[in-house]
């Protein structure tokens, strides 16, 4: 006891001498004290009025149960922690380990003597049991904070297939994955990031399929994250990606457990971030933009058709305005004569040059789209549609823009909704291509396309070429690229992501 007092006095003196982080402690001060009062004071200094301290006696020894109001499940604590503890037949001098092994009926119970671990567990929703005279505590899992249930995915809707999507709770998410990959080779490695948020991050991979080097690289990059907080998987994405200055994200994400499970089975690694339903997957490929999870549930020919359609839509959304512009102001010879007459007639009284007209219309559309996202759901859709129609119609009637221009921009907009994953990149590219077309017509578009192609071909995602299987050409992987071969033809996993390539046959 004296020893504890001296330690405490020493700690208080040192703390007063060092301005700055009030809670910086000497290494030995990260341990719990034997005296309950000291531990209580210490814990109280970290939390506000949401800390609940329940004093009790276990046998004849004073005990303290701590938990955070709102994070812990009080009913669970009452039923599975307090009830077993408050038994009159508990022996005197019982140790924590004995209580853990013989009396507590809760499932997940850990013993620790580290204060940071105790504080972290309290913040996560666990409760801690401290005994007077023992420099340790039991951490009992009792998470009971409000959480959203498993619902339909709002960003990746499908006509056929499971409806479940990830939630903000990481444990629920891991459970959803475990349900789909029941093999014990599905491993979850836990780490955390964020000095203040201490966000839990789980790395999921299938041993024997995922490459160990890639897993190690993921862990290395996650360990390098040194920020105040990681509030969403997007933070993690931007800190671990290979090309942070590129328009294209080299880290994939999905809200669907079936999609993530399929990617795990191809040799990828999933990064689950607590607090967000979007799970990251690496390595990521550009072609994933055009591949939906529903493609594998539908017939191969229709799935192929849909992929080609999405790819064509992507090309249209990026290139159509630029090509229209280059044909109308540089290469008018390509336009059929009669169409040219109607276009000339339509643009006869427009005061603006075509380039400015295109930029105005594109910008207007982006404003409408962004505004539509922020409107309340009840009125959002109607106002978007009506606004777009009225704006388009009024602009044409007023002679501000020509009707062909409105058609081109509208069609471009519709096509952009077919590939939402890269919508941001494609939007910016569209403006770049428009500028290139206005500068040098078709030659400008060509040079810009060459730059884009070279950039995409140079991107990598965790050691894998981003544009695989096209750049470089991997003929074996073309079966599941723009086309979707029948499932029984897809016998191998993608090249380069795993040494264990065979995925059909060989069942033991």
């Amino acid at each position, binding site marked *: 006891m004296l020893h504890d007092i001296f330690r405490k006095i020493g700690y208080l003196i040192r703390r007063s001498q060092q301005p700055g982080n009030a809670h910086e402690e000497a290494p030995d001060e990260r341990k719990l004290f034997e005296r309950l009062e000291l531990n209580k004071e210490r814990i109280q200094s970290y939390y506000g009025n949401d800390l609940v301290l329940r004093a009790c006696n276990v046998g004849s020894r004073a005990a303290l149960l701590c938990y955070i109001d709102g994070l812990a499940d009080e009913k669970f604590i009452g039923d599975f922690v307090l009830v077993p503890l408050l038994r009159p037949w508990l022996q005197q001098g019982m140790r924590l380990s004995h209580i853990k092994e013989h009396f507590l009926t809760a499932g997940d119970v850990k013993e620790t003597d580290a204060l940071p671990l105790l504080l972290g567990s309290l913040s996560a929703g666990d409760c801690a049991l401290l005994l007077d005279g023992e420099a340790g505590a039991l951490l009992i899992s009792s998470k009971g904070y409000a959480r959203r249930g498993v619902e339909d995915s709002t960003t990746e809707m499908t006509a056929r297939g499971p409806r479940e999507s990830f939630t903000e709770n990481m444990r629920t998410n891991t459970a959803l994955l475990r349900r789909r990959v029941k093999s014990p080779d599905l491993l979850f490695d836990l780490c955390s990031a964020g000095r203040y948020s201490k966000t839990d991050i789980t790395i999921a991979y299938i041993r024997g399929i995922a490459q160990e080097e890639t897993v190690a690289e993921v862990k290395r990059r996650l360990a390098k994250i040194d920020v105040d907080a990681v509030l969403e998987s997007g933070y993690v994405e931007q800190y671990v990606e290979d090309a942070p200055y590129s328009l294209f994200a080299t880290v994939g994400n999905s809200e669907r457990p079936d999609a993530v499970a399929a990617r795990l089975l191809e040799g990828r690694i999933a990064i689950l971030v607590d607090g967000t339903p979007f799970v990251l997957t690496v390595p990521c490929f550009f072609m994933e933009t055009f591949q939906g999870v529903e493609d594998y549930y539908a017939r191969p020919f229709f799935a192929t058709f849909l992929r080609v359609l999405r790819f064509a839509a992507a090309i249209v959304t990026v290139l159509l305005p630029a090509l229209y512009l280059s044909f109308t102001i*540089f290469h008018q010879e390509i336009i059929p004569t009669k169409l040219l007459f109607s276009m000339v007639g339509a643009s006869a009284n427009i005061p603006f040059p*075509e380039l400015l007209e295109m930029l105005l219309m594109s910008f207007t559309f982006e404003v409408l789209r962004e505004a539509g996202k922020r409107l309340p759901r009840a009125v959002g859709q109607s106002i978007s549609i009506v606004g777009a129609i009225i704006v388009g119609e009024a602009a044409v009637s007023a002679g501000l823009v020509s009707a062909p221009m409105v058609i081109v921009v509208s069609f471009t907009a519709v096509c952009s909704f077919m590939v939402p994953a890269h919508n941001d990149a494609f939007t910016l590219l569209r403006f770049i291509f428009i500028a290139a077309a206005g500068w040098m017509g078709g030659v400008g578009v060509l040079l810009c396309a060459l730059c884009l192609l070279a950039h995409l071909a140079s991107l990598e995602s965790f050691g894998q070429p981003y544009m695989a299987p096209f750049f470089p050409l991997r003929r074996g992987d073309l079966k599941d690229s723009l086309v979707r071969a029948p499932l029984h033809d897809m016998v191998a996993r993608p090249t380069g992501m795993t040494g264990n390539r065979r995925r059909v046959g060989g069942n033991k």
Partner: protein
Amino acid sequence: MQNAERKCRGFVALLLVGLLFLFAACNGSRELYDLGIVLGIGLDRSAEEGAVDMTLQLASGLQGEPGGGMGGLQSGEAFINYTLPGDVSLSHFRQFKLRMQKEVYLAHNELFVIGEPLARAGIGPYIDFFLRDPELRVSTNILVAKGSAAELLAAEAMLSEYPTLSLSQREDSYPLSGATSRCSLFDFVSAMASECRCATVPMAELQAGADGEPISVFNGLAIFRGDTMIGTLTQEEVSGLLFLTDAVRNGALRFSVDGSVVEVELQRSKTKLCYTVQEDGTADILVTIRSGGRIVSRAGGAAERNSIIRAGETRMQEEMLMTLRRAQELHADIFGFGDAIAKCEPDWWEVHGGNWEANLPRLRFAFDIVLEPGEL
């Protein structure tokens, strides 16, 4: 240090991109409304010595008002014809630009119409001028007008509201009509570049229509040696040319046999020519034709099938002989016999090719014609 380097690089990159915009006026972009879309070009011999009246037909309703002091100005509802005398040159086109306040845009030009007087004088310099223009198509059709090209361009259009488009479409449809051939700028220049071949260009003239208004009608072909027109083929002689150049796609035969007048529509025809050269500089040409079709009408008489076939074959031969005689009269190899012989008998051609035009009348022809019409 790295930061400073990055900033330097970023600055240089921005500077380079910014410099691009200094070239803002150098890119040659044109707004749609600034274009004077030319659909047809007519060339006539001017009253002024050495000058040429150039007529441009532009799509109307899309054009600005012309400036004052124009030459001739004709207008239909959908088109405007501008005529300006001068020499076909860059400055001549610049005059159009000044007066129309629009850029003369030749990429959609469908037709050249050359007045016959100018064609007989020679059109080489004008062809050369237009051939060098990067906008103009070499697939543009050429037509010779019996009379004035400007008048032909102003005549009422049949298939389209634009006379040039109508004329051009009719020329393009020669396989269906079987009554004329097609000559593009490419074909014309190829013939000019050839050692001995003469180009044939469709001719059109104005005739009074049902309502008294003049309409354009195709009638015969003009024969050019080099860039100068030297003669014509009548409408009857055109079909012989088509047979001999294997250009019949939908021909028509009309002949009498045993008191009945028979019309046969030729739907398939294949011509092969076999050349046997002689030491005296002449050649024997075997014309083999296999034709098929259907008998469209048979009025009067009760001719047998075999008689009809023989009469049809005879008629085909007569038409070809008619054309051959005309070509021989003019010493004009409009069929490409010389080119073909030069390719398959180059040694002989090296010796006798120089006298080909003189030897043309001495060519001998044999015919092997098989006509297989459909069931009676």
